[in-house]
Protein backbone atom coordinates (compact mmCIF):
# COMPACT_ATOMS: atom_id res chain seq x y z
CA UNK A 1 0.00 0.00 0.00
CA UNK A 2 1.50 3.39 -0.98
CA UNK A 3 2.45 5.84 1.74
CA UNK A 4 -0.44 8.28 2.17
CA UNK A 5 -0.24 12.04 2.48
CA UNK A 6 -1.48 11.84 6.06
CA UNK A 7 1.30 9.43 7.04
CA UNK A 8 3.84 11.72 5.38
CA UNK A 9 2.47 14.71 7.31
CA UNK A 10 2.80 12.83 10.59
CA UNK A 11 6.32 11.76 9.68
CA UNK A 12 7.21 15.35 8.78
CA UNK A 13 6.44 16.50 12.33
CA UNK A 14 8.61 13.71 13.74
CA UNK A 15 11.39 14.55 11.29
CA UNK A 16 11.35 18.25 12.21
CA UNK A 17 11.95 17.34 15.85
CA UNK A 18 14.47 14.63 15.05
CA UNK A 19 16.51 16.72 12.60
CA UNK A 20 16.27 20.12 14.30
CA UNK A 21 19.97 20.12 15.22
CA UNK A 22 21.14 18.93 11.81
CA UNK A 23 23.85 21.34 10.53
CA UNK A 24 22.63 23.47 7.61
CA UNK A 25 19.02 22.27 7.69
CA UNK A 26 17.09 24.42 5.18
CA UNK A 27 13.64 22.89 5.39
CA UNK A 28 11.58 19.73 5.69
CA UNK A 29 8.68 19.14 3.34
CA UNK A 30 6.66 16.58 1.46
CA UNK A 31 7.45 15.17 -1.95
CA UNK A 32 6.63 12.03 -3.90
CA UNK A 33 8.71 9.02 -4.87
CA UNK A 34 6.69 7.00 -7.35
CA UNK A 35 3.30 6.41 -5.76
CA UNK A 36 4.58 7.05 -2.25
CA UNK A 37 4.44 10.35 -0.47
CA UNK A 38 7.88 10.98 1.03
CA UNK A 39 9.80 13.53 3.05
CA UNK A 40 12.22 15.98 1.49
CA UNK A 41 15.02 17.25 3.69
CA UNK A 42 16.89 20.26 2.30
CA UNK A 43 20.43 21.13 3.36
CA UNK A 44 22.63 24.15 2.74
CA UNK A 45 25.68 21.95 2.21
CA UNK A 46 26.65 18.30 2.35
CA UNK A 47 26.59 16.80 5.82
CA UNK A 48 29.88 16.36 7.68
CA UNK A 49 31.24 12.85 7.59
CA UNK A 50 29.64 10.68 10.22
CA UNK A 51 26.39 12.66 10.22
CA UNK A 52 23.50 11.04 8.37
CA UNK A 53 19.77 11.42 7.82
CA UNK A 54 17.62 8.30 8.25
CA UNK A 55 16.44 6.72 4.99
CA UNK A 56 12.95 6.40 6.47
CA UNK A 57 10.98 8.01 9.24
CA UNK A 58 8.64 5.18 10.24
CA UNK A 59 7.68 3.76 6.86
CA UNK A 60 7.94 7.11 5.05
CA UNK A 61 10.93 7.39 2.70
CA UNK A 62 13.25 10.39 3.08
CA UNK A 63 15.15 12.08 0.29
CA UNK A 64 17.90 14.59 0.99
CA UNK A 65 19.00 17.41 -1.30
CA UNK A 66 21.63 20.12 -1.01
CA UNK A 67 19.92 23.36 -2.11
CA UNK A 68 22.60 25.84 -1.08
CA UNK A 69 21.81 29.28 0.30
CA UNK A 70 18.29 30.59 -0.32
CA UNK A 71 17.82 34.31 -0.82
CA UNK A 72 14.95 36.63 -1.53
CA UNK A 73 14.64 36.95 -5.30
CA UNK A 74 15.05 40.67 -5.80
Amino acid at each position, binding site marked *: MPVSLERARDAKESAKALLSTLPGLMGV*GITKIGEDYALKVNLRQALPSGVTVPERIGDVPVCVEVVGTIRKRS
Partner: protein
Amino acid sequence: MKLDSVRELKQSLPVHLSKTFAVRAAAGRTASLAVSRAAALERVTPSYFLGVSARGKKDYRLALRLQDRALEKSELVEQCRAKAKGEIDVRYVGRVRAAAAPWYRSRQRPLLIGSSIGFLANGFVMAGTLGCFVRSGRSSALYILSNNHVLADENRYPKRGHIVQPGTLDRGSPSADRVAELTRFVRLDPAQTNLVDCAIAKLNPAMAADLHKLKGIGTLAGQRRTDLETGAVVHKVGRTTGVRHGRVTAFELDGVTVEYDLGILTFDNQIEIEGSGQRSFSDAGDSGSLIVDDDMMASALLFAGGDHGGSNGKGVTYANPIAAVLQALAVKLA
Protein backbone atom coordinates in the same frame (compact mmCIF):
# COMPACT_ATOMS: atom_id res chain seq x y z
CA MET B 1 48.83 36.98 -39.98
CA LYS B 2 50.22 37.11 -36.47
CA LEU B 3 48.13 38.83 -33.84
CA ASP B 4 50.76 41.49 -33.16
CA SER B 5 50.98 42.29 -36.86
CA VAL B 6 47.23 42.78 -37.12
CA ARG B 7 47.22 44.99 -34.06
CA GLU B 8 50.02 47.08 -35.51
CA LEU B 9 48.19 47.41 -38.81
CA LYS B 10 44.96 48.31 -37.05
CA GLN B 11 46.70 51.07 -35.11
CA SER B 12 48.14 52.53 -38.28
CA LEU B 13 45.01 52.60 -40.39
CA PRO B 14 42.73 55.25 -38.89
CA VAL B 15 45.43 57.87 -38.93
CA HIS B 16 46.37 56.95 -42.45
CA LEU B 17 42.79 56.91 -43.68
CA SER B 18 41.48 59.89 -41.86
CA LYS B 19 42.96 62.16 -44.48
CA THR B 20 41.12 60.38 -47.23
CA PHE B 21 37.83 59.34 -45.67
CA ALA B 22 35.32 61.07 -43.52
CA VAL B 23 34.60 58.84 -40.54
CA ARG B 24 32.80 59.08 -37.25
CA ALA B 25 33.46 57.52 -33.88
CA ALA B 26 31.99 54.09 -33.40
CA ALA B 27 32.79 51.46 -30.81
CA GLY B 28 31.60 47.95 -30.12
CA ARG B 29 32.61 44.34 -30.43
CA THR B 30 33.66 42.81 -33.66
CA ALA B 31 31.89 39.67 -34.77
CA SER B 32 34.76 37.49 -33.70
CA LEU B 33 37.83 38.33 -31.71
CA ALA B 34 39.12 41.41 -29.95
CA VAL B 35 37.57 44.69 -29.07
CA SER B 36 37.10 47.27 -31.72
CA ARG B 37 37.95 50.89 -31.24
CA ALA B 38 36.87 54.17 -32.65
CA ALA B 39 37.90 54.55 -36.27
CA ALA B 40 38.33 58.27 -35.85
CA LEU B 41 37.21 61.03 -33.63
CA GLU B 42 35.51 63.28 -36.12
CA ARG B 43 31.73 63.28 -36.15
CA VAL B 44 31.09 62.84 -39.87
CA THR B 45 29.61 60.11 -42.03
CA PRO B 46 30.01 57.48 -43.36
CA SER B 47 31.53 55.23 -40.67
CA TYR B 48 33.42 52.03 -40.08
CA PHE B 49 35.32 50.42 -37.26
CA LEU B 50 38.28 48.14 -37.05
CA GLY B 51 39.10 45.04 -35.09
CA VAL B 52 40.87 41.71 -35.20
CA SER B 53 39.24 38.62 -36.63
CA ALA B 54 40.43 35.06 -35.95
CA ARG B 55 40.47 32.64 -38.87
CA GLY B 56 42.01 29.77 -36.97
CA LYS B 57 44.44 29.16 -34.17
CA LYS B 58 47.17 31.79 -34.38
CA ASP B 59 45.85 33.02 -37.73
CA TYR B 60 44.39 36.50 -37.58
CA ARG B 61 43.03 39.05 -40.01
CA LEU B 62 42.14 42.67 -39.92
CA ALA B 63 38.38 43.04 -39.31
CA LEU B 64 36.70 45.94 -41.06
CA ARG B 65 33.09 46.51 -40.04
CA LEU B 66 31.03 48.88 -42.13
CA GLN B 67 28.07 50.82 -40.83
CA ASP B 68 27.08 52.13 -44.24
CA ARG B 69 26.47 49.94 -47.30
CA ALA B 70 27.84 52.68 -49.53
CA LEU B 71 31.28 51.84 -48.18
CA GLU B 72 31.22 48.24 -49.38
CA LYS B 73 32.63 49.10 -52.80
CA SER B 74 34.58 52.12 -51.74
CA GLU B 75 38.19 53.14 -51.88
CA LEU B 76 38.26 52.74 -48.10
CA VAL B 77 37.84 48.99 -48.37
CA GLU B 78 40.33 48.71 -51.20
CA GLN B 79 42.97 50.68 -49.34
CA CYS B 80 42.46 48.62 -46.19
CA ARG B 81 42.66 45.44 -48.26
CA ALA B 82 45.88 46.62 -49.83
CA LYS B 83 47.40 47.59 -46.50
CA ALA B 84 46.42 44.22 -45.06
CA LYS B 85 47.73 42.44 -48.17
CA GLY B 86 44.41 40.69 -48.56
CA GLU B 87 44.35 39.47 -44.94
CA ILE B 88 41.10 41.25 -44.21
CA ASP B 89 37.55 40.30 -43.15
CA VAL B 90 35.07 42.92 -44.37
CA ARG B 91 31.45 42.86 -43.22
CA TYR B 92 28.53 45.25 -43.26
CA VAL B 93 27.06 45.37 -39.72
CA GLY B 94 24.86 48.46 -39.89
CA ARG B 95 24.35 50.74 -36.93
CA VAL B 96 25.37 49.24 -33.60
CA ARG B 97 22.82 49.83 -30.86
CA ALA B 98 22.52 48.64 -27.29
CA ALA B 99 20.17 45.63 -27.07
CA ALA B 100 16.63 46.74 -26.25
CA ALA B 101 15.32 45.74 -22.82
CA PRO B 102 12.67 43.00 -22.95
CA TRP B 103 9.08 44.10 -22.35
CA TYR B 104 9.07 42.87 -18.74
CA ARG B 105 11.89 45.28 -17.85
CA SER B 106 10.27 48.18 -19.67
CA ARG B 107 7.50 50.68 -19.07
CA GLN B 108 4.10 49.03 -19.58
CA ARG B 109 0.87 51.04 -19.94
CA PRO B 110 -1.55 49.54 -19.34
CA LEU B 111 0.27 47.82 -16.50
CA LEU B 112 1.08 44.18 -17.18
CA ILE B 113 1.45 41.17 -14.91
CA GLY B 114 5.08 40.07 -14.88
CA SER B 115 6.61 43.49 -15.47
CA SER B 116 9.28 45.28 -13.45
CA ILE B 117 8.13 47.18 -10.38
CA GLY B 118 9.48 48.47 -7.10
CA PHE B 119 9.72 51.04 -4.35
CA LEU B 120 11.85 54.18 -4.37
CA ALA B 121 15.00 53.61 -2.38
CA ASN B 122 17.54 56.09 -1.11
CA GLY B 123 20.95 55.45 -2.58
CA PHE B 124 20.29 52.32 -4.60
CA VAL B 125 18.11 51.01 -7.40
CA MET B 126 15.94 47.89 -7.27
CA ALA B 127 13.27 45.98 -9.13
CA GLY B 128 10.96 43.07 -8.52
CA THR B 129 7.91 41.77 -10.33
CA LEU B 130 4.29 42.89 -10.50
CA GLY B 131 2.48 39.70 -9.46
CA CYS B 132 -1.15 40.41 -10.33
CA PHE B 133 -4.09 42.68 -9.55
CA VAL B 134 -6.42 42.28 -6.57
CA ARG B 135 -9.40 43.99 -4.95
CA SER B 136 -10.07 44.58 -1.27
CA GLY B 137 -13.49 44.22 0.30
CA ARG B 138 -16.39 45.54 -1.75
CA SER B 139 -14.40 48.40 -3.21
CA SER B 140 -13.79 48.44 -6.94
CA ALA B 141 -10.32 49.93 -6.38
CA LEU B 142 -7.47 47.95 -7.87
CA TYR B 143 -4.27 46.97 -6.09
CA ILE B 144 -0.98 45.51 -7.24
CA LEU B 145 0.02 42.31 -5.45
CA SER B 146 3.70 41.51 -4.99
CA ASN B 147 6.12 40.71 -2.19
CA ASN B 148 6.68 42.78 0.94
CA HIS B 149 10.34 43.03 -0.05
CA VAL B 150 9.38 44.34 -3.50
CA LEU B 151 6.73 46.90 -2.50
CA ALA B 152 7.48 47.58 1.18
CA ASP B 153 11.28 47.25 1.44
CA GLU B 154 11.06 44.58 4.17
CA ASN B 155 8.67 46.57 6.42
CA ARG B 156 10.67 49.81 6.03
CA TYR B 157 8.74 51.62 3.29
CA PRO B 158 6.13 54.10 4.51
CA LYS B 159 2.43 53.61 3.90
CA ARG B 160 1.44 55.53 0.77
CA GLY B 161 5.04 55.38 -0.42
CA HIS B 162 5.30 55.59 -4.21
CA ILE B 163 5.62 52.45 -6.34
CA VAL B 164 7.16 52.83 -9.80
CA GLN B 165 6.86 50.74 -12.96
CA PRO B 166 9.41 49.88 -14.19
CA GLY B 167 11.50 49.63 -11.02
CA THR B 168 14.41 52.04 -10.67
CA LEU B 169 16.87 49.28 -11.62
CA ASP B 170 15.15 49.33 -15.01
CA ARG B 171 15.30 53.10 -15.27
CA GLY B 172 11.87 53.74 -13.85
CA SER B 173 11.51 57.45 -13.20
CA PRO B 174 10.92 58.35 -9.52
CA SER B 175 8.42 60.98 -10.65
CA ALA B 176 7.03 60.10 -14.09
CA ASP B 177 6.62 56.36 -13.51
CA ARG B 178 4.68 56.38 -10.25
CA VAL B 179 1.80 53.96 -10.68
CA ALA B 180 0.63 53.06 -7.18
CA GLU B 181 1.02 53.69 -3.45
CA LEU B 182 1.90 51.12 -0.81
CA THR B 183 -1.30 50.21 1.03
CA ARG B 184 -0.50 47.36 3.40
CA PHE B 185 1.83 44.43 3.89
CA VAL B 186 2.29 41.40 6.10
CA ARG B 187 5.27 42.10 8.36
CA LEU B 188 8.36 40.00 7.84
CA ASP B 189 9.55 38.85 11.24
CA PRO B 190 13.08 37.53 11.90
CA ALA B 191 12.02 36.40 15.39
CA GLN B 192 9.10 34.20 14.36
CA THR B 193 8.06 31.79 11.66
CA ASN B 194 6.65 33.54 8.60
CA LEU B 195 4.05 32.20 6.19
CA VAL B 196 4.02 34.81 3.44
CA ASP B 197 6.07 37.64 1.94
CA CYS B 198 3.41 39.88 0.43
CA ALA B 199 2.09 43.42 0.09
CA ILE B 200 -0.40 45.43 -1.94
CA ALA B 201 -0.23 48.89 -3.48
CA LYS B 202 -3.27 50.84 -4.62
CA LEU B 203 -3.22 51.88 -8.26
CA ASN B 204 -3.16 55.60 -8.89
CA PRO B 205 -6.40 57.05 -10.29
CA ALA B 206 -6.82 56.49 -14.03
CA MET B 207 -3.88 54.08 -14.16
CA ALA B 208 -4.88 51.42 -16.69
CA ALA B 209 -4.08 47.75 -16.13
CA ASP B 210 -4.46 44.59 -18.16
CA LEU B 211 -5.89 42.53 -15.32
CA HIS B 212 -5.56 38.97 -16.55
CA LYS B 213 -2.94 38.79 -19.27
CA LEU B 214 0.25 36.86 -18.55
CA LYS B 215 2.11 37.81 -21.69
CA GLY B 216 3.72 34.77 -23.27
CA ILE B 217 1.70 32.32 -21.16
CA GLY B 218 -2.04 33.02 -21.45
CA THR B 219 -4.98 34.55 -19.63
CA LEU B 220 -5.39 34.20 -15.89
CA ALA B 221 -8.44 31.98 -15.32
CA GLY B 222 -8.97 32.37 -11.57
CA GLN B 223 -7.65 31.04 -8.29
CA ARG B 224 -6.66 27.42 -7.80
CA ARG B 225 -8.74 25.93 -5.00
CA THR B 226 -6.51 22.99 -4.06
CA ASP B 227 -2.90 22.96 -2.92
CA LEU B 228 -0.17 22.37 -5.44
CA GLU B 229 1.41 18.96 -5.07
CA THR B 230 4.64 17.38 -6.26
CA GLY B 231 4.77 16.98 -10.02
CA ALA B 232 2.36 19.82 -10.84
CA VAL B 233 3.45 21.79 -13.91
CA VAL B 234 3.63 25.54 -13.28
CA HIS B 235 4.49 28.72 -15.16
CA LYS B 236 5.41 32.30 -14.40
CA VAL B 237 6.51 35.50 -16.08
CA GLY B 238 8.92 37.67 -14.14
CA ARG B 239 11.07 40.77 -14.45
CA THR B 240 14.40 38.97 -14.83
CA THR B 241 13.88 35.64 -16.58
CA GLY B 242 10.59 36.37 -18.35
CA VAL B 243 8.48 33.30 -19.05
CA ARG B 244 9.71 30.14 -17.37
CA HIS B 245 8.11 26.77 -16.84
CA GLY B 246 8.67 24.43 -13.95
CA ARG B 247 7.53 21.56 -11.80
CA VAL B 248 6.68 21.36 -8.11
CA THR B 249 9.29 19.28 -6.31
CA ALA B 250 7.99 19.59 -2.74
CA PHE B 251 5.16 21.23 -0.80
CA GLU B 252 4.23 21.99 2.80
CA LEU B 253 7.91 22.76 3.35
CA ASP B 254 8.57 24.01 6.88
CA GLY B 255 11.64 25.73 8.23
CA VAL B 256 12.66 27.23 4.88
CA THR B 257 15.45 29.65 5.81
CA VAL B 258 15.87 32.67 3.55
CA GLU B 259 18.43 35.48 3.59
CA TYR B 260 16.96 39.00 3.70
CA ASP B 261 18.38 42.40 4.58
CA LEU B 262 16.54 41.94 7.89
CA GLY B 263 18.49 38.75 8.57
CA ILE B 264 17.66 35.08 8.23
CA LEU B 265 13.91 34.53 8.04
CA THR B 266 12.13 31.22 8.42
CA PHE B 267 9.03 30.25 6.46
CA ASP B 268 6.56 27.38 6.90
CA ASN B 269 4.16 25.79 4.41
CA GLN B 270 6.10 26.72 1.28
CA ILE B 271 6.14 25.32 -2.24
CA GLU B 272 9.38 24.30 -3.96
CA ILE B 273 9.75 24.43 -7.74
CA GLU B 274 12.48 23.48 -10.20
CA GLY B 275 12.81 24.85 -13.71
CA SER B 276 12.04 22.69 -16.71
CA GLY B 277 14.68 21.81 -19.28
CA GLN B 278 18.09 23.20 -18.50
CA ARG B 279 16.87 26.43 -16.94
CA SER B 280 16.17 27.70 -13.47
CA PHE B 281 12.58 28.68 -12.71
CA SER B 282 13.61 32.12 -11.47
CA ASP B 283 16.43 34.49 -10.68
CA ALA B 284 16.96 37.67 -8.69
CA GLY B 285 14.33 40.21 -9.73
CA ASP B 286 11.58 37.64 -10.29
CA SER B 287 10.32 38.11 -6.73
CA GLY B 288 6.62 38.82 -6.69
CA SER B 289 5.85 36.79 -9.81
CA LEU B 290 2.47 35.10 -9.86
CA ILE B 291 2.79 31.36 -10.46
CA VAL B 292 0.00 29.68 -12.40
CA ASP B 293 -0.78 26.01 -12.94
CA ASP B 294 -1.37 24.31 -16.27
CA ASP B 295 -4.99 25.55 -16.25
CA MET B 296 -3.89 29.19 -15.82
CA MET B 297 -5.13 29.24 -12.24
CA ALA B 298 -3.24 31.47 -9.80
CA SER B 299 -1.41 29.10 -7.47
CA ALA B 300 1.51 30.77 -5.70
CA LEU B 301 3.60 33.92 -5.20
CA LEU B 302 7.32 33.59 -5.92
CA PHE B 303 9.65 35.09 -3.29
CA ALA B 304 12.95 33.24 -2.90
CA GLY B 305 15.37 30.83 -4.48
CA GLY B 306 18.88 29.52 -4.78
CA ASP B 307 21.40 28.33 -7.32
CA HIS B 308 21.84 24.74 -6.17
CA GLY B 309 19.63 21.70 -6.36
CA GLY B 310 16.84 20.63 -8.67
CA SER B 311 17.14 17.68 -11.01
CA ASN B 312 18.78 19.93 -13.62
CA GLY B 313 21.17 21.48 -11.07
CA LYS B 314 19.89 25.00 -11.81
CA GLY B 315 18.52 25.66 -8.34
CA VAL B 316 15.12 25.67 -6.72
CA THR B 317 12.55 28.41 -6.25
CA TYR B 318 10.23 28.97 -3.28
CA ALA B 319 6.73 30.36 -3.33
CA ASN B 320 3.88 31.12 -0.91
CA PRO B 321 0.58 29.34 -1.64
CA ILE B 322 -1.68 31.98 -3.20
CA ALA B 323 -4.56 31.16 -0.84
CA ALA B 324 -2.38 32.05 2.17
CA VAL B 325 -1.29 35.30 0.51
CA LEU B 326 -4.80 36.46 -0.38
CA GLN B 327 -6.13 35.51 3.03
CA ALA B 328 -3.33 37.31 4.89
CA LEU B 329 -3.97 40.52 2.96
CA ALA B 330 -7.77 40.09 2.93
CA VAL B 331 -7.97 40.54 -0.84
CA LYS B 332 -9.32 38.67 -3.86
CA LEU B 333 -8.02 38.35 -7.39
CA ALA B 334 -9.37 41.08 -9.65
